[in-house]
Structure formats: structure tokens, C-alpha cells
């Protein structure tokens, strides 16, 4: 579903990602762990297309059925371009498309197009937006994505039903939906709100940056179950960025990676997270 190859990225001219490789298949949950400042959030922002995060080398291919109609032409030719460059690296098979799915050059898409293509970014620090209510924001977001995919907009009533169901599932008080986006929310409420958004938007690939930080025990359970029920499907995938094993108790990863110095320095199964927790990064990443 996501193929990251030799990704180099700079923030304000400072190289942060230095040749990162990662492949995520459909139905998989991957966890990335790593020391503070390793570049984990930089990876998330770079994949999301945040301005200021400049890719200087490498490629990212996203295989999705949601090809934004307005970028279809671009996507196809980009996919071809990627295909040629990957062929020379001998990993061309990653580009095989089946069942109406297309491999698009993620980096060629604008941030809102990446979202419409099925990418969701859970923020480490969700942004407060005074004066814009959660409901208004999410309805506009969902309908913008639907429009790009050529789907009809959701009516106010249908949208509210969907929003209430998600808030309920994640233990977010329904009146929080009417409040301005994240304004005055506690740290944990902000993270729950990210998951409510994910539930409403129903993405293909979720990159969740420390969604577990700042959550109390109940919230952690809610969020863990939320991630499982929204994302644990054969046609979806999750990339969890986390510092702690406790989220992984709820959302069992298939693969665990260590990101250090801007690269994936080690990969393994779920046991790697336990090893990290026991021994720290010094031994493992060395």
C-alpha cells in the first residue's frame, strides 16, 4: 500500500530524513519507535505534505482505489515514472496494481489530494482552530474528499449521525463536536478528537503520530479499540508512531521499526518493541 524508498527530507534546510526505506502492505499495522528528535514526526509531516518539509531525494508510492478524479491523469503518468525508476532498483513488482487500485506518486499530490486519496495524519500536536466548529470542519473535510472522489456530499443529518456514532465509540462527549476545533480541549481530548475525525473520514492508511501520548488509561483503551475498529481491515493499513508498548498491547503491530538518525535502523516483529522497552535504544539501534 505504501512504498517509501530512499527518502531524504529537509526541514528549513536541515537534513532530517536520510535515506529511509519502508514498505507497508494492505492489512498490516506497523509501529515506528525511536529516540526523541529521530525524525518520526518529520516522516509523518513529509508524507502528509506539510509545507516546509522538502523532499530532496527518494520516492513514495501509495496504492489506493481513491484516485482523485482531478489528478487521475497526473497519477497515472506519475505511477509510470515511479515504475521506471523502481524497475531499475529491481523492486518493480511493488507497483502491480489490481482491483481498480492505482499506484500514485504520493509526493506529487497536494496535501488535500493525499487526504482524498485515503491518507490520514493523526497529529502529535492537534491544532486549535478558534471560530470553526468541529462539526463544520469535519463536514467540510469529508465532503471535500467525497467531491474529489466524485461522490455526492453527505447531508447535514447523515453527517451528524456518523459524527455522533464516532464520538460515542471513542468516549468523546457529543457537545465537544459543536465546540471550536480543539480549542480548550485537554491533551487527551485532542487525541480522542483526532480518532473521532479518523472514524468519520474512514481513511485507507492512517499515520498516527504519538496518538497515545497524554491519554489516561480509559482513553488509551478507547483509542486502541477505535484504531482497531476503524482501521483493522484487510484493505487498510496503519503506521503507529509511539514511544510506549502500552498502545501496542491494544493495537498489535505486525512489524516494529526503529527510526534513528533519519533512517530505519532495525525492523522486527512485535517482540522488538518489548526488547526496546527492556533495553532502550542504545543497545538496539547500535
Amino acid at each position, binding site marked *: 500500500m505504501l512504498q517509501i524508498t530512499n527518502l531524504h527530507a529537509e526541514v528549513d534546510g536541515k537534513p532530517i530524513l536520510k535515506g529511509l526505506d519502508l514498505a507497508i502492505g494492505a492489512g498490516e499495522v506497523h509501529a515506528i519507535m525511536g529516540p526523541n528528535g529521530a525524525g518520526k514526526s518529520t516522516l509523518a509531516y513529509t508524507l*502528509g*505534505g*506539510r*509545507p516546509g518539509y522538502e523532499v530532496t531525494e527518494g520516492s513514495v508510492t501509495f496504492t489506493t482505489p481513491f484516485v482523485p478524479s482531478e489528478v487521475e491523469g497526473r497519477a497515472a503518468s506519475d505511477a509510470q515514472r515511479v515504475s521506471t525508476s523502481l524497475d531499475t532498483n529491481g523492486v518493480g513488482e511493488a507497483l502491480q496494481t489490481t482491483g481498480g487500485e492505482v499506484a500514485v506518486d504520493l509526493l506529487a499530490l*497536494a*496535501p*488535500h489530494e*493525499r*487526504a*482524498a486519496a485515503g491518507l490520514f*495524519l493523526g*497529529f502529535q500536536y*492537534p*491544532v*486549535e*482552530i*478558534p*471560530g*470553526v466548529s468541529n462539526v*463544520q*470542519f*469535519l463536514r*467540510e*473535510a*469529508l465532503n*471535500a*474528499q467525497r467531491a*474529489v472522489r466524485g461522490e455526492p456530499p453527505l447531508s447535514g443529518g447523515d453527517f451528524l449521525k456518523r459524527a455522533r456514532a464516532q464520538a460515542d465509540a471513542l468516549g468523546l462527549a457529543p457537545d465537544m463536536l459543536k465546540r*471550536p*476545533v480543539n480549542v480548550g480541549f485537554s491533551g487527551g481530548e485532542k487525541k480522542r478528537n483526532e480518532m473521532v*475525525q479518523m472514524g468519520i*473520514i474512514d481513511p485507507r492508511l492512517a499515520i498516527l503520530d504519538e496518538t497515545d501520548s497524554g491519554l489516561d488509561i480509559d482513553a488509551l483503551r478507547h483509542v486502541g479499540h477505535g484504531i482497531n475498529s476503524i482501521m483493522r481491515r484487510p484493505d487498510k493499513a496503519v503506521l503507529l508512531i509511539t514511544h510506549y508498548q502500552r498502545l501496542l498491547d491494544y493495537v498489535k503491530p505486525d512489524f516494529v521499526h526503529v527510526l534513528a538518525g533519519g533512517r530505519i535502523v532495525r525492523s522486527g516483529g512485535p517482540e522488538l518493541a518489548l526488547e526496546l522497552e527492556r533495553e532502550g535504544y542504545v543497545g538496539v539501534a547500535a
Partner: protein
Amino acid sequence: MASLALPSSREEAWRWSDLSALPALAEARPSGAIPAPDVLWIGDGPRLLFVDGVYDPSRSNPGPVEIGPADARAARHPLGRLAGTRGWRLRIGAEHMPSGTIEIVHLGSGGASHLAAEIEIGEDAQASIVESFAGAGWANRATGITLARSGRLMLMRRILGAAGGFTSLADTAEIGTGASLIATTLAAGAGDSRIDAHLTLAGEEAFAEAGGALLARGQQRHDAALVLRHAEPHGQSRQVWRAVADDQATASVAARVEVARDAQKTDAEQSLRGVLLQRTATINAKPELEIFADDVKCAHGCAVGELDRGALFYLNSRGIPPAPARALLTRAFVADALARIGEEAVREVFVADADNWLSNSPFVSSEVETRPSTSLGTNGRD
């Protein structure tokens, strides 16, 4: 008009205005083609329609408003004095039943129209007025307001004039003991504007609020110049202005609070904020305090910047494209200034006007009606 004496931009109070279009507008003849007024009416209270400054009784239901001589007390204002002494008058006492919101629609077909207004709110009386300005040309208005003890007035203006036109408003108000004036102005058209207000809190515990939103793009210019004078103790004033400028446009707010020696326990707040949608645009915000009393509370905030990039990316990352994301944030930014409009139906209309502007379709009536030009001879310039 033999000679149009206009203030020069070298004068401090006029340095952000561009009045250069006015001489030609003053010479021009109205074309007679006006937008259809229907979409501008909000409720079904009293309503008055002025076309090129001429009252149209056939499409009005003036309620308590009288047509005739009016003293706008604008003799010393360089534009206000041009408004003359002819126009409309509202004198309302507590014995009057509240008549619902009074709506006044001013439509222009080109050229210049001048009109004076006089509003007198008696003891314990109250009124609420919406004035809408649309169409072409220069609409010049002067309004004199008096609020007796505990009188209340809500005055809401929407400036929706067409490109190349100009709307100038000059208000003078005396606010009596315990009386309250809330004035909200929205400039969301395609033309230019100049908004002047000189409000005096002339009685104890008077309340004045003057605020609004100025939205400018292209080469547009909006300029608001306000003076709130606290003359007596325990007065309260609020000024909340939001300016948005795109392209090469300029939006300016100069807001002065004066606190006289006797006006102890004054509580004055100013919040002037601007958003530049492009760096080529200009926003001028100038808060001024002149305080002669020693026991007062005056707070002012003033900030001009760009839309929050972090918020923009957050919206984009959820699938909202750049243009609607900017509109959403700008709308939220402007909302503070329109929130003071008490009547929901009116507030919604103002918010919708701002939305139309943000979605790049400021008020343009789909229908244009043409009136015989013979009915347009007397627009106050003779």
C-alpha cells in the same frame, strides 16, 4: 456641483483614503439601472427604499420613519457636510411600540447621491436599524444620532456596492445616561468605502460599541476612522474590528478612545486585528488612547498577520483544499466582529454576505432593473 472640496491624503485623518474617484462620480449621471432590491430585504418590518438617494414610496413601508429635512450634525465633516439636510428622520419615544427592525436599502445606478439622517431615541425607547448599500456610484450619507436616558439603538450597515463605486458614512452620536449604541458595519462589496464615526458617551454609564469587518481585494480600499469620547464617568466602550485584505487592496482602521478628565471609571476596550491574504495587500491598524482621567481601564489589542499556517495545513491534511481552507479560517476570523449583532436573522445575513465575499462572489444581483431616467432628476444635487 461647482467645486468638490475634498480632504487631501496629506491630512492625517485621511492619509489612508483614496478619494480620487469622487470628483468623476460627482459629475456622472445615474444610469437608472439598479439591482433588484428584493434579495436585500431581511424581515417584514418597516422598510424604506432609496434609489440614487431618492425615496421610492411605492416600494416602501416607512413605519415610524419620516421623509424630510434632517439634521445630521455633520457640518464640520468634509464628506458628511456634502450630505445636506434632506433625508430621513426617526424620532422614537418609549410610548411607541417597538416596530421591529427598520430596514433601509440604498441602491445606486451611478453618479453621486447624498442623504442626511437624524435618529432620536427617547428615554427608555429602543430601535434597531439595518442599512444596506448596493449598486453603482457614490453613496454619501451623514447620520446624527441622539440617545436619551436609557435609550437603545442597534445600527447595522452592510456595504455591498459595486466595483468603481464608493460608500461614505459619517456618524455623529450623543449617548445619554445609561443609554446604549451598538453600531456594526460590514464592508463586503466590490467598491471602496470610508466610515467615520464620532461617538460621545455624554451621560454616566453610557455604553457604545463600534465595530465591524472590512473585506478588501483587488484594488479595493476600506477606511474606518472612529473616535469614541468618554465625557462622563462609568462609561463603557467596545471596538472590535476585523480587516481582511487580499491582492493589492488596503483596509485601514484608526480608532481613538478619548477619556475626559471627568470620565472616571471608564472601561474601554479595543481589538483591531487584520489578516493579509497576500503580502502585496496592506492593512493599517492604528489604536489611539488619549486619557485625561486617572481611574480608568483601557485595554487595547492590535495585531496584523497572515492566516495561521499550522491551521491551514491541518485543514488541508483533512482534505479541505487551499481556497476553502483559507475561506474557513478567514470566516472564523471575521465572525468575532459580526457576533455582536443581536438579531439572529440579521446576523445570519451579514455572515452570508461575508461568506459570499470570501467565496469570491460579492453581492451582484442577478436581475438588473432599469427605471426611466426622468424619475432620477432630484437626487439632492440641485
